[in-house]
């Protein structure tokens, strides 16, 4: 005689709920790996650093308005734009700034939000954080399909020089 399905599956579930032995060395391996990585902190910047950043940004806007400057090494400046007339604040967050909204707050002019960041060649995931709570992917960029963090995001690929 077969036992009823519910009892049978219950026996399977009890078996699977038993603890599984995980190598206790895993903790140490994780900690070693992350020790080499700066944590994604919400940093508080001193007032003078904001002034310095504003000066650098102004210089950037005047001398290199979001165009790639062939022949120079180092990252290039890219402008990110989001049209959000109802938003009170928008930040650009992505792999390039540890997803920290404080590091790339966007400036608005009549509901068009913009900011400029320097990016070295590579593939980056990013999103816009609206009003500090609402995640939005970039409607003008490919969606990130491999994003496991549960919020929408987009992908930008920056090619190397000559690419």
């Amino acid at each position: 005689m077969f036992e009823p399905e519910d009892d049978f599956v219950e026996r399977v579930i009890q078996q699977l709920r038993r603890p599984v032995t995980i190598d206790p060395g895993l903790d140490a391996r994780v900690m070693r790996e992350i020790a080499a990585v700066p944590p994604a902190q919400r940093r508080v910047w001193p007032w003078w650093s904001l002034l310095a950043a504003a000066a650098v940004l102004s210089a950037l806007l005047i001398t290199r308005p979001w165009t790639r400057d062939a022949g120079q090494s180092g990252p290039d400046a890219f402008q990110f734009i989001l049209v959000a007339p109802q938003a009170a604040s928008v930040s650009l967050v992505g792999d390039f700034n540890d997803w920290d909204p404080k590091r790339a707050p966007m400036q608005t002019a009549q509901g068009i939000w913009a900011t400029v960041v320097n990016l070295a060649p590579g593939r980056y995931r990013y999103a816009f954080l609206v009003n500090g709570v609402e995640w939005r992917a970039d409607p003008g960029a490919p969606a990130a399909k491999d994003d496991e963090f549960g919020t929408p995001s987009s992908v930008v690929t920056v090619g190397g020089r000559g690419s």
Partner: protein
Amino acid sequence: MGIDKVEPSDAELVRRVRAGDIGAYGALVSRYRDRLGRYAVHMIGDHEDAEEALQDSFVRAYRSLARCYDPARFGAWLYGILVNRCRTTGARAARRRRMFVRDADALNGAAHADQADRLEWTDSVDRALARLAPEYREAFLLKHVEDLEYEQIAELTGAGISALKMRVKRAREQLQKYLREAEHV
């Protein structure tokens, strides 16, 4: 009477990590290692691959901690990262899956008949689980083994609740079928 040790909450530990206390992350790893490890082992089927996926998930979570907007739900957020990582690993591992064939000597050497039976049952369950389609296995494990609500599973997997219920139902039916077959081999 006595002194109870009060463990810091996930939210408190996340706050400490963000403030630069890496050691606090160690407490989060210890807290979630075994539970998430069990899911990874059952989902992937290969212990080594599962530990690799688990380790990678912890490191990814650390690197993206700024995206954990509700630190009180760190565990659920971490689960989401692991579920996704297991999907990637599972797709790779399926191509080179090692079946759980217990060494015949181990069975013969079992001290008691009931011990041998238990080993055999464990192997049968592992084999049956490995035969399920990954989306059925995932839904079954999250619902029945990890004891999550359908709403939580939907949030983690991106699947609709009715689809998840169907997957769990099919998984139950298939597990029973595969295990009955094994009993009659």
